[in-house]
């Protein structure tokens, strides 16, 4: 067994003035696995790392136990210093003798010393029993699959190609563009949707690295980060691919608000997207256009704001004023959602341009008049406290984007969660396009309602994140772990001890545990590159079959026995 070197820091008396380091040295030095115990004045000052490294090399020890300050003190500096000198971080353990012993028990040196000795004892037990996970590296397929060729998917595909990665871009439509194809002016610019996407669509057509599959669907995806096996079905039958990363950019659907404000039964009651189509053909002639916001959104059924409807109404209201001389445009709204500087300026522009705004209360929604064809709207203006009656010949309903069930089906295939509205959930605010399944990235309105600019930025973000691990050549449980510093390995299943109860499968937050048939039995298997070594499986396994070698039950048991050695 590799011998252990113990190095204790006096921290210029901050530790040694309270904790009796000499008595600890005597106690620990008698342990047969300990090669030496050295007390140093400091570990974090210039030259200390080199001196420790020299000591480690000279004595030829395999493991180091440090007694110094807390990880929130200067321990990380010590660790980094040792790592730079070439001491393997995984063989170094540290005990907090300063903040946790000397400082907090400053008034009771005997207790502080006992606590310090016990903690060092337990870490020695850990080092003596610790095993290695034997990390498994997997070769990365340097190709990516992008599902959905709207603004987000196009931007992700072009981003990946710009970084030299081969991309398979799949869309259920015949041509790229998605929802933006029907938008005649993308707020707050003067460009149409197709004009805005032109550079991306052109690159998709011309780049030798991008292959576009129109009218194609993803039939199945299996695998994990670095190696996904994909089956596509399209006009030319099915195709099999192997890719290292998957970008989900499947977009969202439009809500058609049947029954609300006479939609579907009354002439000239249309949705915002239908208005885009009318504007494209020049048919949106009207005297007074009334826009109603939050139709089917921010309500009990869909308690969310769809992000894009307020700016779209501002834009289309101004277009009516610009294109139809003498016309009026009125927006009936709840809160005007124009955060930031660009959209707030757009809102001010609409105010100056003469768009009228009337705030209504969700509990008193506007009522429409007219039989078969809309003729007017009654609305209680909450700011002035009066009911206003507006003659109108065009009622435009701002409806939210809703999640596409096809995205949810893909999410299930990829084993990533969707939120309660059906949109696909990211990992954390600081990881906005990453998912629980490494190697799967999300962008655009499949993730959450977004403007075209936001969707394009998210596509670029997904491309950068995907490229960063496609470029590594190999991935492993350790390299995929986002946790810096000491990395534990991964769980391992003991096929002999496993009874196939499935407890681990139920608790694994990363879908890394799977039941597999071996002969007559089901046994658990760990997809190693997915495992983050959280230990959930080990804690629910009734037979001790699931273990993380670095900290398995033998190690923990040895630590506990050592801690209570004196009591017993």
């Amino acid at each position, binding site marked *: 067994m590799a011998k252990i070197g113990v190095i204790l820091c006096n*921290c*210029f*008396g*901050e530790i040694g003035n309270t904790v009796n380091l000499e008595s600890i040295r005597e106690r620990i030095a008698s342990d047969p696995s300990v090669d030496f115990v050295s007390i140093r004045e400091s570990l*974090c*000052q*210039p030259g200390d790392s080199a001196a420790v490294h020299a000591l480690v090399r000279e004595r030829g020890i395999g493991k180091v136990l440090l007694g110094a*300050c807390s990880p*929130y*003190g*200067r321990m*990380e500096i010590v660790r*980094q210093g040792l790592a730079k000198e070439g001491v393997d971080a995984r063989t170094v353990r540290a005990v907090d003798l300063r903040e946790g012993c000397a400082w907090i028990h400053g008034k009771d040196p005997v207790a502080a010393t006992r606590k310090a000795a016990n903690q060092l004892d337990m870490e020695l037990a850990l080092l003596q029993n610790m095993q290695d996970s034997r990390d498994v590296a997997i070769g990365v397929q340097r190709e990516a699959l992008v599902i959905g060729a709207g603004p987000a998917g196009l931007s992700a595909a072009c981003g990946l*190609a*710009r*970084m*030299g990665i081969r991309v398979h871009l799949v869309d259920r439509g015949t041509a790229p563009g998605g929802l933006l194809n029907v938008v005649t002016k993308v707020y707050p610019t003067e460009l149409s949707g197709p004009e805005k996407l032109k*550079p991306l669509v052109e*690159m998709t057509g011309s*780049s030798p690295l991008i292959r576009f599959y129109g009218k194609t669907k993803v039939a199945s995806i299996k695998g994990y980060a670095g190696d996904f096996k994909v089956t596509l079905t399209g006009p030319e039958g099915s195709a099999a691919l192997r890719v290292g990363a998957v970008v989900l950019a499947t977009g969202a659907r439009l809500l058609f608000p049947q029954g609300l404000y006479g939609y579907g039964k009354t002439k000239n009651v249309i949705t915002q997207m239908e208005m885009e189509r009318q504007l494209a053909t020049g048919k949106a002639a009207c005297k007074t256009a009334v826009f109603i916001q939050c139709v089917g959104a*921010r309500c009990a059924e869909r*308690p*969310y*704001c769809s992000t894009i409807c307020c700016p779209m109404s501002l834009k289309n209201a101004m277009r009516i004023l610009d294109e139809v001389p003498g016309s009026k445009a009125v927006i009936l709204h709840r*809160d*005007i*959602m*124009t*955060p*930031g*500087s*660009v959209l*707030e*300026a757009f809102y*001010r522009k609409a105010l100056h341009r003469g768009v009228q705004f009337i705030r209504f209360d969700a509990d008193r929604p506007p009522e429409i008049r007219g039989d078969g064809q809309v003729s007017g709207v009654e609305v209680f203006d*909450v*700011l002035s406290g009066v009911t206003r009656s507006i003659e109108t010949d065009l009622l435009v309903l701002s409806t939210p984007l809703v999640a596409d069930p096809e995205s949810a089906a893909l999410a299930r295939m990829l084993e990533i969660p969707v*939120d309660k509205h059906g*949109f696909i959930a*990211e990992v*954390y*605010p*600081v990881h*906005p*396009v990453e998912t629980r399944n490494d190697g799967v990235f999300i962008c655009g309105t499949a993730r*959450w309602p977004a403007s075209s600019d936001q969707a*394009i930025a*998210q596509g*670029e*973000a*997904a*491309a*950068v*994140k995907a490229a*960063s*691990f496609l*470029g590594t050549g190999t991935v492993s449980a350790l390299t995929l772990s*986002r946790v*810096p*510093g000491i990395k534990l390995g991964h769980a391992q299943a003991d096929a002999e001890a496993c009874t196939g109860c499935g407890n681990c499968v139920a608790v694994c937050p990363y879908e890394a545990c799977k039941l597999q048939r071996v002969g007559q039995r089901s046994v658990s298997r760990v997809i190693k590159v997915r495992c983050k070594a959280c230990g959930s499986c080990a804690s629910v396994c009734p037979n001790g079959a699931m273990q993380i070698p670095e900290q398995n039950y033998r190690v923990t048991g040895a630590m506990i026995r050592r801690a209570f050695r004196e009591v017993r």
Partner: protein
Amino acid sequence: MQTTDKKTKTVLVVGGGVAGISAALDLAGNGHRVHLVERGYDLGGQVAKLDKFYPTDHCAFCPLWTEIRRCKEDEAIAIHPLSRVETLEQQPGGYRAVVVQSACVVDPSLCINCGRCETACPKSVAKPIWEHAYPPVHVIDGNRCGDCRACVEVCPTKAIAFDREEQRVALDADEVIWAAGFDEVSLAPMKEYGWGTHPDILTSLEFEAWKAEAGDNQGKIIRRSDGAVPRSILFVQCAGARDLRLLPHCSAVCCMHALKQAQWVKRRHPDIDCVILYTDLRTVGRDYYEYALRDFNGNGVRLVRGRSSLITPLPDGNGIAVKYEDTITGKREIRQFDMVVLNGNLQSSLASKPAPGARPELSGEGFVTAAAVSCGFVMEPADVTESAIQAASAALRTITDKN
């Protein structure tokens, strides 16, 4: 337009907050080198000073800390703390930046945070740095120092020296990403907000630090004036923002920030009357509207649409008088509150006066234009999620040819 750029680039990232950290990690992750210039002592920016994230109400610092550590462990990222970009000149094939690192009295590479300077200092100017900074060290406020040098005598590691000078280094970079974040703008010119006239009139960032669980009051919600638990707190939205006299833009993060703070107060002290005075309640992100709905559904924070016209201290410690109109009921009210939190006065830090050093072309409102690559609040008011997305997008644009 097909470009496969295999060359390793060096990118100067100005600002080490969420946006700068994310951009640096994405660049390094793709094999490029980064100079990360941060004005503060440690990375993290404004978010590191927040207590909680919305809408999860989770600790704000933990996920950020992971990213900060990844930055520090990455050999491709050179971090320049306490630094600013003094000049930035274009040169063939890239840029040359002169970066100035301020002189520090306490050398963080030596200080062991033992606190002997704090004990020795007769004027109490040696203090521990803010809780989340790593490594934790003591700092000395040179402006209030009595020059006795007692601290120099007791320091065991010789970390304290008063004769250090600021350091200037010239850095060459292929590209620059501006990620300098935001600052609070002084509300003193707008006298109706009463900022600076009473200790219990705070900006929202001041309040966040004041009530932080890891802060001086360990999560207790008390008045700054006398340490008593307030009976009522008013959160005033759009203070100085959406206002052509100061900041025309909407700062985008303040509605959720106020909801988060008010709900936090309410959970701790259900008796405190919390009122949010808002213009439009802007809740556009995932789960944001439902976060606000908790209050519409009667959790207790009262949402009042309106704007205050006067906030002024009352005599004899009787709190603060606020004159406002509830624009839904049409009622004009004058009410007494124990604390007032002002929200919204955030602007791009590059728009601060005097100029913080070199800066790119800015819009009239102080945001970086499309002429330069930027991300986070200097590009457009943004929360953590948006900043991280823009950062990755900025990283892509610097490492591939723009098109």
